[in-house]
């Protein structure tokens, strides 16, 4: 199938890429643009490893076609911290031992970032609901929930 040229906004930059019309947003990010921080765990929206922000809302990049990207502001894990270092949320997740194998972690960082932007003072139940779409097989979730809660507290939420 012949490729099409596509231009969109990713991590604050305007980027262009040749994509296969069948490519998902996840394939655009990972295969065409080399933004491999976003992971593929299932390819059908069940695991949340590919969560990115689309206009500020968490979205499974495996369920969105690359062709839908133009016109949206997309933020991936690479766009959160940049060269400045870690966000407070990332720092707290690291220090809490909230990442083990790390494969689900970028998706969880994105989901939690979206939660804290929308709800500065989430309860533990709010946090668990916000990351319920992100499967983690290593941690048992406890340290993740604590790190997100700590971030909210530190921000004065």
């Amino acid at each position, binding site marked *: *199938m012949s490729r099409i040229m596509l231009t969109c906004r990713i991590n604050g930059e305007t980027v262009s890429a040749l994509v*296969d019309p*069948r490519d998902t947003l996840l394939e655009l990010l*990972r*295969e065409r643009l*080399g933004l*491999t*921080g*976003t*992971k*593929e*765990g*299932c*390819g*059908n929206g*069940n*695991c949340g*490893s590919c969560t990115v922000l689309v206009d500020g809302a968490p979205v499974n990049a495996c369920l969105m076609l690359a062709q839908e990207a133009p016109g949206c502001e997309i933020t*991936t*894990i*690479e766009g*959160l*911290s940049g060269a400045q270092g*870690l966000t407070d949320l*990332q*720092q707290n*997740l*690291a*220090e*809490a*031992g909230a*990442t*083990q*194998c*790390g*494969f*689900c*972690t*970028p998706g969880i*960082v994105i989901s939690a970032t979206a939660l804290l932007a929308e709800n500065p003072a989430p309860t533990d139940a709010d*946090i*668990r*609901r916000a*990351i*319920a*779409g*992100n*499967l*983690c*097989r*290593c*941690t*048992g*979730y*406890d*340290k*993740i*929930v604590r790190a997100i809660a700590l971030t909210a507290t530190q921000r004065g939420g």
Partner: protein
Amino acid sequence: MALPTTKRDDHRDKPASSIGQSLVRVDARDRVTGRAMYPADMQRPNMAHARLKRSPHAHARIRAIDTSRAEALDGVFAVVTAADFAKVPLGASIPMGETGYDMWMVAQINMASGKVFWVGQPVAAVAARDSHVAEAALELIDVDYEVLTPVTDIAAAMRPDAPVLHEHVVTKGLAQAADGPSNVCSRTLIERGDAERALAQSHATASVSVLVDTAHQGYIEPQAMVAEVSADGFATVWASTQGQFSTELMISRMLDRPLSKLKVVPMEVGGAFGGKIAIHGEAVAVRLAEKCGRPVKLVFTREEVLQGGSGPTMGMAVDIRVGADASGRLSAIHGVYRVDAGGLPGLSPSLLMQASAALYQVDDLHLEGFDVVTNKPRTEAYRAPGGIQGAFAVEQAMDELCLRGGFDPLEFRRRNAAVTGSTMPIGTPFPSIGLSEILDAVAEHPCWTKALEPGVHPRGRGLALGYWRGTSMTSACHVIIGGDGRPVVTMGAVDISGTRTTMTQVAADQFGLAPQDVHVQTGDSKSVGYSDGAAGSRVARTMTAAIVEACDDALAQLGERAARLMQAEPARVTYANGVFSLDEGRGTSITLAELMQETLTDGAIVGRGSSSKLPLGVEIAAHVCDVEVDPDTGQVTILRYTAFQDVGRALNPSAIEGQLQGSVVQGIGWALTEGYDYDANGRLRNASLLDYRLPTALDVPSIDCVILEKPVPGVPYGLRGVGEAPIVPVAACVANAIARAVGVRTGRMPMTPERIVMAMRERAGRQI
């Protein structure tokens, strides 16, 4: 000539050792920023993308494979089938630990030859311009199958008239020699005394039968790999594996490729839990790369992972009978374990049988196990393989015995607990264990002492124990000292559980340096000595022993060099905290950094360490949980969960908590929702993470951990294994809580709402 021994002065003030501290993972920042590299993240110039063609049949003979149409498709670079691989005969094995590893099985998992034994077994592979083209090419590979009748459950497979999967399999271990091929590969018997007689004479008895569904390890990272073969014929494989050396041996054997022409580079591993010990496609990727002259990337889809591409772990049918005298002394354990190995034979149930009965002192014991093949994926290890299934049966039987005999479940276990020196099921004395201390800790903890408050629905509290033996095998490492005096340790073990972090703590402690002044890395299979894989709760213990040895070796070499520089006899040199000094610190001194700056060009300092046959660090856990059960829907809510475990010595308490919490949640998943659901043709009906349901953050409470430390003699720091025992008691613990809440046991795992409601209806029917 023996190297001079440099005395280590342990009395000087050290910088605070990080042993026992929750040092933040040294790789945490790479993980939270998405920079950690897994094989699927690799890009190589001119790279092709591979896909595997898999069998749609659970049991069939392959008559012929025609790849010509696929090869003709534009953008297809190479196609391979079993004909492209070395013939690996029955009985072939590669070295691994004490027993070796069944290489025939590995070959069949990677590429079926002659016959397929499950849906999803690979029969061919394609490398193409991109994954879309590769996918299209799979449809153009024509496989002519003679479809055979599948056998999809243990009971059907054991029937005398069952279709036979393997003509060469004759039941081993029978009292009388078997007279023909069978789906029962072996019978294992562990026996002492007369369990039947002891049961007949018991004051109280209980009998529990369970059927455990096949389940998957559930790592979030699907299998992924990149293979590249240089023009000079050297192959490099970037892999997500539990062992770079076993992966190398397996690839080498499947391809008849010399080990000197093959390197396995371990990347980050996105979860494994036993499912990434065997290779799944790595040899295929190398062969494709050879054939098409390009690097090849192969990444599984989730459906492939679940539908026969890797894993799962074994289902099981277990019948347990136990008895006790009037005082609550256990009189007998009688167990029959039928293990569903999946499509290929060779799964010994011996360890799981022993584990299930290990924590009780009992004179009369009969444990009988059967390794049964069915037309399902060949099962692989999963965190204490078989442990949770065995405990699901035995720990429920013990709980039922307590209910029938009127014994307090904790006191009953204290009364019968195995202790250091008591007889294990195989007849040898227990090494040092802290079960009694664990049970004492349970007795004093609020999770046990505080009464369960009533809720909207019935509530119950469960208790269960878990044991896992673990293993030691071989670990190797070396340490070099940089020009600034900072040590760099290269390990032969991959990091699947924070190993680089805990080993940084060990190496820093050995040198008396701060953790940030030490670097610990995982070596590829050509840069460090042979180590067995990361499995069996062995790496932290054995790599610690290897690092201690390597650091001693390096310090001896350094001490000799320091003596020369300070113009003194080596015997006068002592080392502590980065400083060599003479005469117990009263004389001249030189720092490690100064020493290396002065002598870097005098030759390399390489400290070597290896560990093999280290004493076992057996793992024991006790779990307590409170549940609430909605009697109308069968929905189970876990209100509280507490895991107690003796870890010998907690190198990094946060990492240990992470192992315990993650283990418990995996166990809860299998206990309540995770199970393979096959149709009559052996096709998995729930091959997605929507229908094969791992626990989400909403399904589980915060898991409380109580860490006890009873060091293991003869092991540096007294370390025990950690990562396996905490999954063992979980399903039984939840089952015992459910039984105490609503009075039923499902006899099935997972204990889905439907099964709980059915069990309650059945009981109500009986009562009418």
